[in-house]
């Protein structure tokens, strides 16, 4: 399922926002992706050249690896910094809820009834 459709508005997204989106796409999957695959996944009328430029920038920053899994032109996210961040985050979470409680988390917990209602909302495509 690709995110194509009437909702993508590539022309209104800044370079920084597109970088985040491409990086998020690479992290969302276990597979290495080619620029064409990323383009199909993101959708929203994003030009192939734009995807290519963004990947080059991410590569220069050391955020992605190129030519991985023996596939020429396939990209994968670089894991080192992300693993250190995860360790630091879990260390803080284990210490107690205080530091994270002050954060504005994207979502909070659910009751059993609410869970069922949300599954209904997502319909067949839900997890």
């Amino acid at each position, binding site marked *: *399922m690709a995110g194509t459709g009437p909702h993508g508005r590539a022309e209104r997204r800044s370079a920084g926002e597109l970088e985040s989106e491409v990086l998020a796409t690479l992290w969302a999957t276990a597979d290495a992706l080619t620029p064409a695959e990323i383009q199909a996944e993101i959708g929203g009328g994003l030009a192939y050249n734009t995807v290519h430029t963004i990947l080059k920038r991410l590569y220069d920053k050391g955020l992605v690896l190129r030519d991985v899994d023996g596939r020429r032109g396939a990209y994968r996210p670089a894991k080192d910094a992300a693993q*250190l961040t995860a360790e630091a985050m879990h260390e803080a979470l284990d210490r107690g809820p205080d530091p994270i409680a002050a954060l*504005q*988390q994207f979502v909070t917990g659910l*009751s059993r009834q609410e869970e069922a209602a949300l599954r209904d909302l997502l319909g067949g495509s839900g997890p």
Partner: protein
Amino acid sequence: MRIDVYVPLVLALLLTSIAPGVGRRVSPGLAARVLVTAATLTAAASTWALLLLGATLIDQAPAVIAEAGEEGRVLPEPVPETVAVLAVAALAVIAHRLLHVLRARIATRRLLLRLCEGHPPDSELVVAASPAPHAFAIPGRPGRILVTAAMLGALEPAERRVLLAHERAHLTHRHAALSTAVSLAAAANPLLVPVRETVAFLLERWADEEAASAVGDRRTTARALARAALASRRARPGCALHFSEHAVTRRIAALQTAPPPVMRSVGAAVLALGALPALGAADATSDLLHLLAGTLPGL
């Protein structure tokens, strides 16, 4: 001074009672901004009122007694001494509560900066290679967005865009500063704690509305919230129930209707309610100064 000085303390209750209604009917951006402003003014005024009450103890100070005694004046006693002593005790508690909030904020800030270590400074998205779904904004210049790999993997492409737009809205509209302001207000005046909870919810609603307009689709925004909530639920099945337990479903329900209107008149009314205690406190201040000046010309 007799009545004015108590006005700021009572008006906090009025603000607390109207906050949920304002939050439900007015666009979340406007509601959050006016509630934070009114709460901050109210808390500042009520703290100042306590200071004034405490200041009436000044006639107990040996230096003041000596000077007044020489001139043969009777010292004013605008409020009972017990009230003044209680006010001083309340001020001590408030100072402690304010420090607690500030310390917690600084600790969080330090943690967030540590989480960004090793990531290029000019990159907005900071990914944590974690199997637990989390996402939050990291305020700063520039602000950044931390999302775990598990959260990214749980969402579909358009929903990931919603998530990024939501966190970006927290950063662009300085929600962290608003949240700190209302937390300090609630620490200074515990009657405002419900206002703090309302604002916390409104900041999420505000970011949801911004995300919906950035992505151009309320339905996708609602689905993103639902999927993220379900993923979090699976990851933390034994998690204790929390006061904001119903927040996600209420946010989703709000996205399934039209966006609430920007009602400037209601906003202005809330601001006026915040200005009243400040006026009361100002009036009480001039009364006290007047009293003291009349007794002690040297003051």
